């Protein structure tokens, strides 16, 4: 190293650094120009069509009703309220869908690897059929071909437990909280926390001594037993308002609308097909030696699965599982086709139709979904970091 200055030969055009600057400048120029052109076009088009721009419609009276709302909503409520109703409905169906799809997906995924030939084949057929048909078709099938032909309210199907099912929905008993109901709630909370504490303690004991405690049975007993005890002590503080026929319709109870049922069924069965494949791949990724080691220790199949294989498989399963949850949430926007009042149907459909504010409404809707997606992937990255194999 003499410290001699590097002399460049040839034209600067062949300097990758300079080229890089040029390309990036060109890209910025193009984006800025397109952005400018779009904004000026929008302002011209809006002015010509006499559509104002802004969020002033947010507090305007909406004037349409929504049958399923998680907080009091009437036709007198504002567009903003309609937005929140839609968003909450999206989150509601997504939450239920995620829970059920996970359960069904794990069952089907494990069934695909079952040694029982017929169970494995049935699971395979399920996965192949579900994954190769459009979700929209499946939703229409559930809504129009399964739920619509159900009997009229007059001929409702009685489901054991006091629920009624007809073509207007599922009517489930509504709990009525009397005096002392708080005690039952407290007992339930106590059972939940007690179970968690017992779980932690039992795991520590297992790690220390190798003794296995019946966590499942104890927590199940606590979760049912404590509230039941409180129920008896308070003398039946919670009663149920059972749905019953009244006139031409069912009265009482909580109504679960057919749109919700169809969307939930469709999303659950569809996503479960994908989750099943994720679970299967995750289990297959656990090396065979782990199975054999568990076998040689004499662990029964269920314990091998739950204590040896699945904990290791989860590391492979969780990232694609999260993206399936995300897909389910995004797919819930297909509610539009069956009229379930989710964010897409209420806001992107009805509110957009009534106000004509395309840019604001599409923008807000996209921002909501984008936020959900980014939050989920942030959580996933955090989880991945925690779960990643510590390599030494």
């Amino acid at each position: 190293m003499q410290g001699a200055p590097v002399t460049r030969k040839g034209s600067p055009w062949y300097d990758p650094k300079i080229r890089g600057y040029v390309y990036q400048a060109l890209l910025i120029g193009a984006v800025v120009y397109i952005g400018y052109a779009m904004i000026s076009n929008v302002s011209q088009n809006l002015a010509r069509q006499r559509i104002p721009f802004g969020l002033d419609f947010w507090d305007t009276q909406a004037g349409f009703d929504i049958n399923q709302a998680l907080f009091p909503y009437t036709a007198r409520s504002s567009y903003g309220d309609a937005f929140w109703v839609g968003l909450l409905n999206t989150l509601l169906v997504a939450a239920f869908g995620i829970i059920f799809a996970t359960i069904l997906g794990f069952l089907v995924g494990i069934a695909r690897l079952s040694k029982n030939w017929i169970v494995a084949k049935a699971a395979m057929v399920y996965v192949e059929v579900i994954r190769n048909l459009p979700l929209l078709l499946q939703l229409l099938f559930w809504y129009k071909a399964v739920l619509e032909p159900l009997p009229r309210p007059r001929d409702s199907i009685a489901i054991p437990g006091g629920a009624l099912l007809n073509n207007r929905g599922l009517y489930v008993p509504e709990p009525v909280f009397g005096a002392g109901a708080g005690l039952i709630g407290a007992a339930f909370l106590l059972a939940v926390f007690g179970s968690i504490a017992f779980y932690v303690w039992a795991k520590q004991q297992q790690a220390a001594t190798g003794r296995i405690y019946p966590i499942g049975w104890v927590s199940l007993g606590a979760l049912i037993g404590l509230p039941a005890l409180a129920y008896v002590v308070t003398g039946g503080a919670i009663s149920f308002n059972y749905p019953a026929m009244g006139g031409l319709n069912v009265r009482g109870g909580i109504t679960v609308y057919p749109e919700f049922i169809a969307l939930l069924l469709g999303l659950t069965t569809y996503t479960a097909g994908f989750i099943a494949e994720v679970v299967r791949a995750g289990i297959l990724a656990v090396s065979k030696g782990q199975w054999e080691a568990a076998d040689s220790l004499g662990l029964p199949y269920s314990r091998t699965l739950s204590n040896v294989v699945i904990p290791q498989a989860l590391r492979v399963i969780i990232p694609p599982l999260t993206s399936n949850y995300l897909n389910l949430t995004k797919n819930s926007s297909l509610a539009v086709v069956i009229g379930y009042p989710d964010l897409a149907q209420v806001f992107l459909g009805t509110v957009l139709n009534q106000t004509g504010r395309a840019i604001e409404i599409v923008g807000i809707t996209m921002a909501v979904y984008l936020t959900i997606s980014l939050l989920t992937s942030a959580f996933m990255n955090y989880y991945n970091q925690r779960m990643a194999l510590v390599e030494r």
Partner: protein
Amino acid sequence: MNVSANASAYVQAQSLPQLPAPSSTKGPVHWMRANLFASPANTLLTLVALYLIATTVPALFKFYVFDAVWSGAGRDSCLSDKVGREVGACWAFVGDRLQYFIYGSYTQAERWRVNLVFLGFGISIVWLLWDKAPFKSVGFLFFFGILPISAWMLLYGGARAEFWFLMAGFALLAWSIWGDLSAARKGEADVFTRPESLLRYGILAAMLLFGLYVQFGPGELPVVETGLWGGILVTLLIASAGIVCSLPFGIALALGRRSKLPIIKLFSVVFIEFVRGVPLITVLFMANVMLPLFVPQEWSPDRLLRPLIGVALFASAYMAEVVRGGLQAIPRGQYEGAMSLGIGYGKMMRLIVLPQALRIVIPGIVNTFIGLFKDTTLVTIIGIFDFMKTIEASFADPLWATPTTRATGYAFAAIFYFICCWGMSRYSISVEKKLAAGQKR
């Protein structure tokens, strides 16, 4: 110690014939024991599964095959009180409306144009997907260049379409000749006479001759407005527009995302993550209601073009992630080898990295395409008459209003989508196996 051959009568002189294996280790009984009735729990599962199968499968067959009505002229042939027997699926309805499901309301007399496009589409699919098909590069030119332009001209028709069709044809021809000339200048022999070039020029010449014939011949093709298009035609159109646009855009975005230039990387990441973070429906709504606001009034895109743009954008982002996976799988040595030879970025990617990267991600590309194909059904929401929508619309027809029409229509749609998607997934699995075999060596 005196055991010899002649010694005692109770020693067997020759070996006995082998007995068949006991039935508990071989044969159907053993198989059933091992695979169906291994343990009580297993037996219970088998019985439950058998019960479920026994309750559903025969009922489905009864409804869709044995009790089905296969021909008839109207709803009366599918009503049980008119026919006098139990009536299952009404396939007569599908048979009657099949033309509508394929072409939508496309003008009757002009449907040969659609058939021609279907033919070209079929040829190019076989050409590209079949491993041993010759002249793949011409196939790519055909599918990504000639077919989209020709299809648009054929399907739409009219003087304006034909003019642009001719221009595009000449442009492709000029581009092709220019490429061959520059190859010849570099010393490659027989660039114009090898079979590949002959085929390419043949196809281009046929395209141009057809265009010239239509332009200056006896009469131009009448315009068929896009509002009349429908059915499988539109489904295939959206799906193939998605794949034709998403591959190049997806590759560009993937390269951008892995670029060292921060601004290019930033824009690529923002675009990809934004599109992947929102549902397709919102993108379709954006294309449908926002796009016309973004462009000058006179450019306002056609109603069918809007979802095409939306689907293409959407698919590009997903394709970009698939391609990025392939790019990441290419070992650094390949990049470094190319750079040490002094090859520039464009050539390095085109000749060394991308051919390897795209090869490994063929299964991923096909899977993305399956998703895209299923997602084309969403355009029904913004009022485009794709295959799904034509079926749904037919249910409103009083001529075929029977209790079983809907179940039949959905079954037909399911069969169509299943065959397409399942076929694609089989193809991707076979490619995956072939690639894995190549890796093993």
